[in-house]
């Protein structure tokens, strides 16, 4: 079967996407879950251990607190309260922490430090899987056993004000609630006022038991201007006032004889030095946890806060309120909170917690008996029993107290050990699915590599021996073998794996596909290795003496070197440095090529070419000499100009980890004093974008483009990023929905014109000129959309991208006769570098989610995801689209350029993706696997998916070309 290389490449990429999806399913562990699907009940609680005598009561000790107020401040960083500036930011809280009856801790949040997984962690006590981040925005109701459900079942009345994620997670759980949306990140006063306005009336009333407040303003400020902004202090002072208000109201309410109250101040996650969150750096992970209650001892001396896990709050609250601990909770109770109760109650609380943890341990670890913590717990339980016996006998001696203290210590050790064993359990992988996915991807990659000589030949077609493979004996043998392996693995009942839970039909299809791939691979490999065995008339290896120029060496070495560098966590964190470095070297190499062409080969054969080239164009030039001269200087100036552009863009957005805190131009532009500069810059960039893009458009699209870009500016003015020259004051902030929709209309219009031109060129006239215009119009539609989505300070990135593309296409790629493969690799490198110029990094936190709401009144899933993905991958996409435009305009020089380009793009993308999944598998017990490697894995797979889309686009382009030719 003969297929064109573009079809071949897109086919391979699409199947690679499936392979990677399977790998991802196996890689991201399903969270630790109890086997029972039901929820903990009061009646299930274990009896108090007592050795010897009759069964004891299974009653819970009296709850510690009557009323709990949880004040959750989004993105409250530990040093905002405990740090040196805490005294200035939150004076009252600091006073209570240092002098009052309180306990304070640094609570470590687990990555991903994003709000929804953190809320889940706080309420269920489990550690949500990494994949929860992806569902972060679309939160269905939480069905797992959790604190809120337990409280509601126990008849507690819960009041909630704040982030409406809670309302969606716990529908019908709250007696009274008011959710605020967190989508408009630029609003940081209204969201908090919406919470505080209910506070006075609620605090006066007496009809609630649990009050939860979730303040979002601080997080929004962090996203807008970082942790050192001037907005932080007033916001924290406001929070401090609220805390003071609640505290004094609670003190007033407290009556003699009844149980005390508990006031909890906590943060769901911290905030990095740039103000974002999601990763696992210290400032993102460390949150303050302050527990205030008259039940605690008043503190005399200062002490630095201890360190606990964030999930430890759940069992503590559950026990404090007299509720069963939720089943999947992996935390252990904070001992300080129990200090003031009697020794018997303390032991009872610890026993309950230990029992719950040991049950979870039994369900989630196959050989749980060997766990140290489990053993310790058994021992402690026995000792507890004998202590109880003595206690019941009325013994009150010193010995009993000491023994009790010993049991207490044993319990605490056992709890800590079990908790950490469960935490480790999260790193359990579904190896079978992972290996299957990996084998799949590698078969495809090998096929891609083996087909290289054919795919890059003049015919640009690959001969796949599908039929002979399907009819061969090895194919059936392979099928049998793989099927039996599958049965063997699935019946050996190791642990649950995704592949085994699939239906038989699907699995068999995968098995058959994999065996076909294998047979094709073998037959192609034999053909490559022994070319004499079969005679292939069509595949010609003419001109196969491969002489590599310096540029080729650089391109190859760069691609391989980059792939290898992914093995080091620092290189993944600082991947932008690799790309900038490679891109610079590429520009210098190109510069050297240009110099060589214009200086060295002046009196050689170059001269004739110079004269032929301009005359090839239809326009006869009046002053060929002068034109050549100016062209020479422009060509010479292009690489240095590109270098300078890249250097400037590099300082626009600092990304990565090590140097992310350094000040950059983007922050400078975004600060309110420099609004004027930002406005001028944005206006200038938009004008330049118009000038660069309109050259090759039809007049309809030109007008649409101009209006669209105007709309972009007015959108930015409406959301208050830039200044309007004629609108100075009295301007209220809006969402800019109307303006954004205005731009969308023009984007659609331009895309429509482009598609119409493409279709016309294909069906009616077969006109190459019309076709390249249609392609360019589609490209300009994309540019317009991206210019709407980019933040105002990022517009120079888009501008430079277009400028470099224009100059390079005009003076370098055309004039120096780079072939399709070289051009593709250069485009790919530029695309990668621009991905990071935009401010992206290999960290989930840098994805700009607010883009998903441009032009929308509320959150709608599909467009939001589409817009966010487009904005994030704007750089690579723009360069890939430019590649299509460029290669199809170069068609008269080499008719198969598009096919070659598509093949190279597929190869460039699949090599790092395939290598990376192997690396991740090898490094799966690495310390940074969740914080560094997994986000990168998600980025890689997303990029692969997008490249598959681009390759399909390539494919249609080539299709229409061949049809128009015939």
């Amino acid at each position, binding site marked *: 079967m003969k297929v064109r290389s573009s079809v071949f490449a897109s086919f391979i990429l699409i199947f690679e996407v499936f392979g990677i999806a399977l790998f991802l399913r196996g890689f991201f562990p399903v969270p630790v879950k109890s086997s029972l699907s039901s929820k903990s009940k009061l009646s299930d609680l274990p009896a108090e251990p007592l050795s010897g005598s009759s069964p004891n009561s299974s009653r819970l000790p009296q709850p510690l607190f009557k009323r709990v107020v949880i004040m959750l401040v989004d993105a409250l960083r530990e040093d905002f309260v405990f740090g040196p500036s805490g005294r200035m930011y939150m004076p009252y809280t600091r006073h209570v922490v240092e002098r009052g009856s309180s306990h304070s801790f640094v609570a470590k949040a687990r990555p991903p430090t994003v709000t929804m997984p953190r809320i889940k962690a706080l309420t269920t006590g489990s550690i949500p899987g990494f994949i929860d981040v992806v569902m972060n925005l679309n939160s269905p109701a939480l069905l797992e056993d959790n604190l809120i459900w337990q409280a509601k079942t126990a008849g507690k009345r819960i009041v909630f004000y704040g982030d409406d994620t809670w309302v969606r997670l716990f529908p019908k759980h709250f007696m009274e609630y008011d959710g605020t949306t967190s989508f408009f990140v630029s609003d940081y006063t209204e969201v908090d006022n919406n919470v505080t306005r209910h506070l006075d009336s609620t605090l006066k009333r007496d009809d609630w038991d649990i009050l939860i407040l979730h303040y979002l303003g601080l997080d929004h400020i962090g996203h807008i201007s970082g942790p050192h902004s001037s907005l932080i202090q007033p916001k924290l002072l406001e929070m401090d006032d609220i805390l003071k208000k609640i505290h004094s109201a609670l003190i007033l309410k407290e009556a003699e004889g009844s149980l005390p109250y508990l006031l909890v101040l906590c943060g769901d996650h911290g905030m990095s030095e740039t103000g974002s969150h999601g990763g696992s750096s210290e400032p993102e992970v460390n949150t303050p946890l302050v527990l205030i209650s008259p039940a605690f001892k008043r503190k005399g001396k200062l002490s630095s806060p201890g360190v606990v896990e964030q999930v430890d709050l759940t069992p503590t609250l559950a026990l404090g309120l007299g509720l069963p601990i939720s089943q999947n909770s992996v935390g252990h109770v904070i001992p300080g909170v129990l200090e003031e109760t009697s020794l018997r109650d303390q032991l009872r609380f610890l026993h309950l917690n230990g029992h719950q943890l040991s049950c979870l341990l039994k369900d989630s670890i196959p050989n749980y008996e060997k766990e140290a913590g489990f053993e310790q717990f058994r021992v402690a339980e026995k000792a507890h029993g004998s202590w109880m016996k003595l206690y019941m006998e009325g013994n009150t001696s010193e010995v009993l107290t000491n023994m009790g203290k010993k049991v207490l210590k044993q319990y605490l050790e056992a709890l800590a050990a079990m908790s950490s064993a469960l935490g480790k359990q999260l790193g359990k992988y579904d190896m079978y699915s992972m290996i299957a996915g990996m084998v799949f991807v590698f078969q495809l990659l090998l096929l891609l590599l083996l087909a290289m000589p054919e795919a890059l030949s003049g015919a640009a077609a690959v001969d796949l021996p599908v039929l002979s493979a399907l009819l061969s004996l090895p194919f059936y043998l392979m099928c049998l073998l793989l099927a039996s392996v599958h049965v063997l693995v699935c019946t050996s009942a190791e642990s649950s794996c995704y592949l085994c839970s699939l239906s038989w039909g699907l699995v068999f299809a995968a098995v058959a596909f994999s065996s076909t791939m294998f047979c094709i691979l073998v037959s192609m490999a034999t053909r490559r290795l022994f070319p004499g065995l079969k005679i292939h008339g069509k595949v010609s290896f003419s001109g196969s003496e491969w002489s590599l120029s310096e540029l080729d060496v650089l391109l190859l070495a760069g691609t391989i070197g980059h792939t290898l560098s992914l093995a080091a966590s*620092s290189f993944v964190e*600082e991947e932008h*440095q690799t790309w900038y*470095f490679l891109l610079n070297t590429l520009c210098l190499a190109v510069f050297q090529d240009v*110099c060589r062409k214009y200086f*060295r080969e002046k009196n050689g054969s170059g001269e004739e070419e110079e004269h032929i080239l301009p005359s090839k164009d239809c326009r006869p030039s009046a002053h060929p000499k002068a034109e050549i001269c100016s062209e020479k200087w422009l060509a010479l100036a292009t690489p240095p100009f590109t*270098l300078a552009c890249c250097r400037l863009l590099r300082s626009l957005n600092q990304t*990565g980890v090590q140097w992310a805190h350094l000040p950059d131009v983007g922050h400078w532009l975004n600060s309110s004093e420099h609004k004027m500069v930002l406005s001028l810059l944005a206006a200038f960039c938009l004008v330049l974008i118009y000038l660069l893009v309109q050259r090759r458009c039809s007049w309809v699209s030109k007008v649409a483009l101009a209006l669209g870009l105007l709309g972009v500016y007015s959108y930015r003015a409406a959301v208050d990023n830039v200044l309007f020259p004629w609108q100075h004051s009295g301007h209220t902030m809006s969402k800019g929905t109307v303006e954004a929709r205005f731009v969308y209309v023009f984007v659609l219009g331009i895309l429509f014109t482009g598609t119409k031109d493409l279709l016309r060129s294909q069906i009616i006239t077969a006109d190459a000129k019309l076709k390249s215009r249609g392609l360019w119009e589609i490209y300009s539609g994309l540019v317009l959309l991206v210019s709407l989505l980019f933040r105002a300070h990022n517009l120079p990135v888009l501008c430079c991208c277009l400028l470099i593309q224009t100059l390079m296409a005009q003076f370098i790629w055309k004039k120096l006769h780079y072939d399709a493969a070289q051009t593709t690799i250069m485009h790919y490198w530029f695309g990668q570098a621009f991905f990071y110029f935009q401010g992206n990094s290999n960290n989930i936190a840098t994805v700009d989610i607010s883009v998903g709401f441009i032009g929308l009144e509320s959150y709608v899933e599909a467009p939001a995801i589409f817009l966010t993905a487009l904005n994030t991958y704007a750089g690579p996409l723009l360069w890939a689209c430019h590649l299509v435009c460029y290669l199809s305009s170069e068609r008269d020089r080499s008719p198969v350029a598009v096919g070659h380009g598509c093949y190279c793009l597929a190869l460039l993308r699949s090599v790092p993706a395939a290598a990376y999944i192997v690396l991740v598998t090898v490094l799966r017990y690495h310390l940074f696997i969740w914080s560094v490697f997994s986000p990168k894995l998600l980025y890689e797979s997303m990029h692969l998916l997008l490249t598959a889309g681009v390759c399909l686009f390539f494919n249609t382009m080539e299709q229409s070309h061949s049809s128009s030719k015939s």
Partner: protein
Amino acid sequence: MWDHEIRAMASTHAIIAASVFMATVLPAVFVRGFSVYGTHLLWLYSVSGTVTAVSVAVFWLLGITPPTKKHTLGYKLSRLFRSCLYFFLSCLFFHSVVVLYGAPLIESALETFSLAVLLTSLTTLRCLCVLGPNVQAWIRVFSRHGAMSVWDTCLQITVACTVVGAWVGAFPIPLDWDRPWQVWPVSCSLGAMIGFLTGLVASPAWIHYHRKQLTYKCK
């Protein structure tokens, strides 16, 4: 065929390599607390100065520099002046290239410039010594198949090695190991130095083993 020249080259390179070694060791005797990492800039200056002085002296004694057409004092002075100018310009060139590669623009300008001086004294200075301040000759030597003598080939190899060494030296910078040699510009200058020494060893060896294949066009 060129055994004589190859031998001369090897001995020249040995002298230069020895001078680099001395420049690293000797200051430790005179300056307290001298070390390659700790007082990196001092080491840079000492090495660049020594390499400059020794190369100029050795190449002058060897007489490889193309013969000048005129022998007037004024012409010689102008040549000297132009050489100095080129030296300085090349420092600026290297500096700007390093900044383009991402070195901070203002913060550690002195370090960056010292690196540029080192690179210049390792590469441009040799060109100046062998080819003289003659841009046409430089372009000829550094384009494909442009070498016209053993010394040209040697120049190509050493310069390429030095530049590649400095280029490779930048790789460890993003790693989070917190080693003293990861501080800017230690790894790059060490890389350049190692590359240069490799070039000194490799070029006579390479020419020796390829002397059959090497053919030079006459001028």
